[in-house]
């Protein structure tokens, strides 16, 4: 794949923790404007990879090529808002220039939080906090947006709304996106391409050629979902049971966190 400015090329990345090579010669390319979802079992190194790309891992073992754009934004699993700054000040954290506040206001408007500029983070719900975090990422016009399970802590309904919002925002701003998730449905719903991380490398890389809206009922959707789950080591025979368990678990553990 050709590398345009704004895309990501990564080759031969190794990150070891002691003896354990979590990432072992990993290659990954993302074209400008492309939305890639990265799935993998827990502990497979998804977050480690994202931290390397975000530049917050200061002990990368080695890599052969790394070609990342200059403007990279990160959305974490927790909204990570500074509790002592009001919403707008959180959005424009680190921005300079006379129009920073105006840009921040526009970004808040885009995520549907116009009018909440002067609220404190503790006054927002979990979903609203994550929307502020999205605004904070987008106001920087990123060429590459890195998201580490950004909706993992949200309840199912809020998560669906956030999917639609993220999809819309990405279509408007066209950053290259790397979304780390453990949720196969989330990956299929959002991404142009799904990469599966296993044993420190990208073990599979499947395009998502589904018409939008991507309804879970269609045969093509079910087929892709099965293939991805098989790659993740889930026995598709147990699938019905597994989905059932997961839904129950989700209901039990999640709620609108405030």
């Amino acid at each position: 794949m050709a590398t345009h400015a704004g895309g990501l090329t990564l080759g031969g990345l190794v990150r070891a923790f002691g003896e354990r090579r979590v990432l072992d010669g990993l290659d990954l390319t993302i074209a400008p404007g492309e939305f890639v979802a990265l799935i993998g079992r827990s502990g497979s190194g998804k977050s480690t990879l994202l931290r390397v790309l975000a530049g917050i891992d200061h002990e990368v073992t080695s890599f052969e090529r790394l070609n990342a754009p200059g403007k990279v934004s990160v959305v974490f699993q927790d909204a990570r808002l500074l509790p002592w700054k009001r919403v707008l000040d959180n959005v424009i954290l680190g921005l300079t220039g006379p129009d920073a506040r105006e840009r921040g206001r526009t970004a808040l408007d885009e995520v549907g939080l116009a009018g909440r500029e002067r609220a404190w983070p503790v006054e927002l719900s979990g979903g609203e906090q994550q929307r502020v975090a999205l605004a904070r990422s987008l106001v920087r016009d990123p060429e590459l947006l890195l998201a580490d399970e950004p909706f993992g802590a949200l309840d199912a309904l809020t998560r669906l709304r956030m999917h639609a919002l993220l999809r819309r925002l990405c279509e408007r701003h066209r950053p290259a996106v790397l979304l780390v998730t453990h949720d196969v449905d989330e990956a299929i719903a959002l991404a142009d391409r799904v990469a599966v991380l296993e044993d420190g490398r990208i073990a599979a890389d499947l395009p998502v050629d589904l018409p939008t809206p991507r309804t879970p009922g269609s045969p093509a959707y079910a087929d892709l979902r099965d293939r991805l789950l098989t790659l993740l080591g889930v026995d598709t025979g147990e699938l019905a049971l597994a989905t059932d368990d997961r839904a129950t678990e989700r209901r039990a553990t999640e709620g609108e966190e405030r």
Partner: protein
Amino acid sequence: MTTTADSATSTPGKETAPPPPGNAGSPPRARRRLGPGRPIPFSWAIGPLLLLAVWSIGSATGWIDERNLSAPWQVVTTAQDLIERGRLQDDLWASAQRALLGLAFGIAVGLVLAVLAGLSRIGEGVIDGPVQIKRSIPSLALIPLLILWFGIGESMKVITIALGVLVPIYIHTHNGLRTIDSRYVELAETVRLSRTAFLRHVVLPGALPGFLLGLRFAVTSAWLSLVVVEQVNATDGIGYMMELARTYGQTDVIIVGLVVYGLLGLASDGLVRLVQRRALSWRRTLAD
């Protein structure tokens, strides 16, 4: 003052009917609240007023000997007298100047040391040890040495106060800095904050709760040191006034001095708490 004490001790004129026995008519039993509950207005005044009440009753009944402790009203008369002659104001002003000067130097030095130690490993290695050693030596025990170094003038007094102030400011600010969530540091890296912006937007606001807690201890410590340094060759100040009164056996003047110290301590602590509430309005804590 006596009137407030009277009203606090007087029994209420009207008695309300006692609630009927049993739980008839009471709302359904709620689960026990684990937080401290709703704030009581002027709750900070309850303790001091109670103390004043005991003192008044003791003096009025003769249970407290006047040679040991003058009655509250005697103290009030003496205070009025001291104010009319202008002595109290002069001494208070002299004391306040020393305390404020000592506070200012102590806060500045404590803050700078805390930031240096909190942000760099080398700084921590160099600074933390000596401050911890200083912490275990009472400031007042340093006075003989400070007198030899700086004489018995104003600088010795201000330095002693500053040394006492520095420690709580350093300890609590440093602790505040060290406990800033590392996730915020990561965030600052991803939004590419400069060193200065990181300090301004993340480090200092993050350490502010710790600093303000330290400030509360520091203010109290400043008044405390004042008492001692003003008994070393001072010619003015509240401590000097009290030392002089001791020579003449005037317990009422000593009490006036003590009350002034107490009021100053209370007022300055209240002031710091007010600042705390304003500056930390983003926090929702158990006490709110």
